[in-house]
């Protein structure tokens, strides 16, 4: 897919490489870089995923980084029905309706 100037995109940038992470950190976190993702409107004429690009964010700040997504989707959702939860309402109503020996 090719992104064009003005498209809504997401970029990624490494802020600190593992060896630059000098804050006190647990071992697992120390081994990986500190990275950032930001969204904005593409400034380059065209670009492909993986290209170094520049964007303008919602408040007009310019940021550069590697293009990772074009028209990025919100993919968090409501989840699946959870068997451990879906009977709770019925159980509680039964206690309310029934005798106190529930």
């Amino acid at each position, binding site marked *: 897919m090719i992104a064009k100037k003005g498209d809504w995109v997401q970029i990624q940038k490494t802020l600190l490489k593992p060896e*630059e992470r000098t804050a006190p950190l647990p071992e697992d976190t120390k081994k*990986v870089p500190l990275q950032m993702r930001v969204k904005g409107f593409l400034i380059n004429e065209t670009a492909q995923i993986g290209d170094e690009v520049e964007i303008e964010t919602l408040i007009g700040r310019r940021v550069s980084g590697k293009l990772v997504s074009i028209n990025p989707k919100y993919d968090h959702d409501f989840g699946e029905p959870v068997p451990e939860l879906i009977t709770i309402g019925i159980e509680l109503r039964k206690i309310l309706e029934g005798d106190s020996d529930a």
Partner: protein
Amino acid sequence: MRDLSYDAVIARKNEIMKRAVGIDYEKYMIGELVFDYEKMMQEVGYSLEKVREIQQETGVGNTTLVELKQINRLIKKIAPKGKGARIFIKDEATNPSGSYKDRRASVSVYHAQKHGYKGVIAATSGNYGAAVASQAAKRGLKCIIAQECYDSRWIGQPEILEKARSCEAYGAEVVQLTVGPELFYYTLVLLEETGFFNASLYTPYAIAGVETLGYEIAIQTKEMTGKYPDAVVITHAGGGILTGTARGLKKAGAVDTQIIGASVNLKGLHMASDNDFNKKYFTTGHTGFGIPFATFPDRSDVPKNAARALRYMDRYLLVSQGEVFYVTEMLAQLEGMQRGPAGNTSLAAAFALALEMDDDKVIVVNETEYTGAGKLPSAQLTFARKMGMEIKRGDPIKEDLPGKRIVIPEHPSQIGYIEFNMEDIRKSYVKEVMKRYKKTKFTKDEVSFMAEDTNTTEDKIKEYIKELGGELIEA
């Protein structure tokens, strides 16, 4: 070119923060440890009347206090004879961005506008981001929210992804980072680059904004029940909601109300660990923030934190993730209120408390928050299962195992709490002071400050100092 290495930016911290919050903390410092908290709150914050006015301008506050009638019936049914306190809940989800955090953001954004800042920045993975973004929209300021959001494999915590969506809906730029305390480092970089105001969660502005919550609770409870609440149960993380609510209650005259903090127990999970990041199904109101912030509030981004929970907390109760999910279902199914997650942590603790308290007592849960995609128990438990957690019905008090197993109660009588001993927390506070300030010798003034800061006696503080191997300098 500015040097953007971690050490160089942290070295510029004081000058960056001074410009970005505009508070001269030096004025209130008496020594490195001792400072005049009340003077700072009075001079820097705004009066309760002024805060109410500021909040009125943007439609914040004056939320409904709701009696949980069906849940209260359930409590009476399963409680021993003569027990079963009534629970009321403050429906903070009806604030503009969906949580009490609008109160917390309102004064900072007002202040930033008044002082000519072009925009505001907040470092937060929580509801506070949406609140700052919403208040900034209302006042025509730009807004950047920086969040800790993903692990190193780019797996995002669904609740934080939802909060990012919400911020963007209000026109804010959202900077999403991978796991690590360097969120603070990068916030400094952004503050320096933009010259925006730091809408920190921990300034006197932020806490003054929350005082109206406690104030309204006192007034409304009295109207509805004829007395001030016997107890207010408050979900505790960084301590701002507890501090602000307690101060507001006192300002309204509710001085005998018990202040009870409640957190989700996430014992054993490291907050800065990349591996542990997605093993937590609550992103706030848990022990990972609650204990460190109570025992050393000055770990925050400002020199002196205005959120000081131990000054006000009478008891601290821990509940499990499974109990909170259960109570979230209960609130939706019995009260017709789909809310959560954070406020329901204190609701779980309140439910357990109500079963033990006399039936003429009144408990107030001080907040709800908006819910939906990413935030619902179904979203979090689906995610938990994907991350390999075991999920089962059972006895949460006996079987809960943070990071491995989530246990949903089989019956409401299984909702309980683990009481955290306040003496242990206060002693940890003294231990942290010794560690952070590399101190072993304490003057009379320091002892007296620590007693005030933890709401205990000087004798107790002296006892802890001695037990921890410190010494007293007798003046």
